[in-house]
């Protein structure tokens, strides 16, 4: 039924991917990714305390940006696909933000130390109550 296609929209092969003729960018990205993996491994095993999480997440974000933009060709994709991806990330952040904010802003009272162990089925297997280590202060 392709006759009905408007003449202006004639069938023609893909003509995007200007760089598709070279595999070099993929190789570069691959090497950079491996480098960042090493970096995150090194910083991760250093146990930097407060900084560990931000650093690790920052590296992970850079890595995933590379994968998304180059491997997944988002760089050359249409605006709509980019919007889809960004929206998904926004909603991911939204869910995490308000949920963690809830836990983080509850009054102390609401989650007393050791509270998760306050109920009947609370003891870990093999331990009696008095043997149980107290929950450490956070």
């Amino acid at each position, binding site marked *: 039924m392709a006759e009905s296609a408007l003449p202006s929209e004639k069938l023609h092969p893909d003509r995007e991917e200007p760089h598709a003729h070279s595999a070099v960018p993929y190789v570069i990205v691959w090497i950079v990714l491996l480098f960042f993996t090493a970096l995150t491994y090194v910083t991760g095993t250093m146990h930097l305390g407060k900084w560990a999480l931000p650093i690790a997440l920052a590296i992970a974000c850079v890595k995933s940006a590379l994968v998304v933009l180059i491997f997944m060709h988002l760089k050359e994709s249409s605006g709509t696909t980019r919007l889809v991806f960004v929206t998904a990330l926004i909603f991911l952040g939204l869910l995490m933000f308000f949920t963690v904010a809830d836990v983080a802003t509850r*009054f102390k*009272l609401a989650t*007393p130390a050791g509270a*998760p162990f306050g*109920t*009947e089925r609370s*003891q870990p297997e093999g331990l*009696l109550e008095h043997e149980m280590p107290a929950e450490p202060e956070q």
Partner: protein
Amino acid sequence: MNELLRRLLFLPDQASTFARDVDQLHFFVILTTFVMSTAVGMTAVFFFIRYRRRSETQTTPHIEPPAWMEALFVTVPLSFFLLWFFMGFSEFVRQQTPPSDSMDVYVMAKKWMWKFAYPDGPNAINVLRVPAGRNVRLLMTSRDVIHSFYVPEFRIKKDVLPGRYTDQWFNALEPGRYQILCAEYCGAGHSIMRGEVIVMKPQDYEDWLASAKRGLASRQDGAPTSIDFAPPIGNLIEQGKRIAAEQGCFKCHSTDGTRHIGPTWLDLYHRREKLNDGKLIDADEAYLTRSMMDPALEVVDGFQPVMPSFEGRVSGPEVAALVEYIKSLQSDAVRTGPSEGPAYAPVRNR
């Protein structure tokens, strides 16, 4: 005016210090709702009458709203909504922030009963006694699933969660009796998980507390109250307690955590009990029953096998009552001493 609207809207009595303030906003919001929905409906009807179709080929002009009109559509409702939000939220914060001079009562919910424990005194099942005119803070937790502590006349409600504490507070205006309803679905008994708040004159309350401390409390609350719907399960526990006393269990077993001739019953249910042969066992209903029928079979590590068998001495229903009673003995249900246990942390920002 307040009274009229309250009755028209079927709102229950205003028996706490919040109730009136909450209702005031309620009236404002609901009246606006009525006005707006009627206005929209009426406009539609008016337009229908005014602009009836007159012929089958009628054409109509192309009309687009001016920008100011769209702006009006946004700003008018928005200002109402925001006004409500600020009025409501300040009241909400008040309700969520117990005053520091509150009297604490621990509430433990379980399928399907309410248990109240006063820091320095008695426990009660399904009946909460409070003095009128005092700020009362409830520190609540649940044994099993989520419940919700609801007293319509006080306009208070808060979910009661297992594994953590939630709190709420109120200040009852007048002596009287008010129903406690469970407002979070919790199973077959959800709709009969009811209790009663008895608001007493401060002096009566003091008297009651004193007599309760002298040990009469259990008798008082054990007797059937005027609430005919008191769930049978509460009575089962009371029965178990009585039977245990009659059979002399308390000679060897304590209910407050101290070790006696036999292991304490406090927190026994679902305890992982270590037997003298080194095996770990889950103290479930079956095990509890077995322990009464054939105590020598599974002997708890560190105890002598001196417990007599009660086979034939207690009937089936009595065993059930005993088990139910043992199950009810859970440490965070009956917390005595000053209210600074794990649940207590002064509310911030005050």
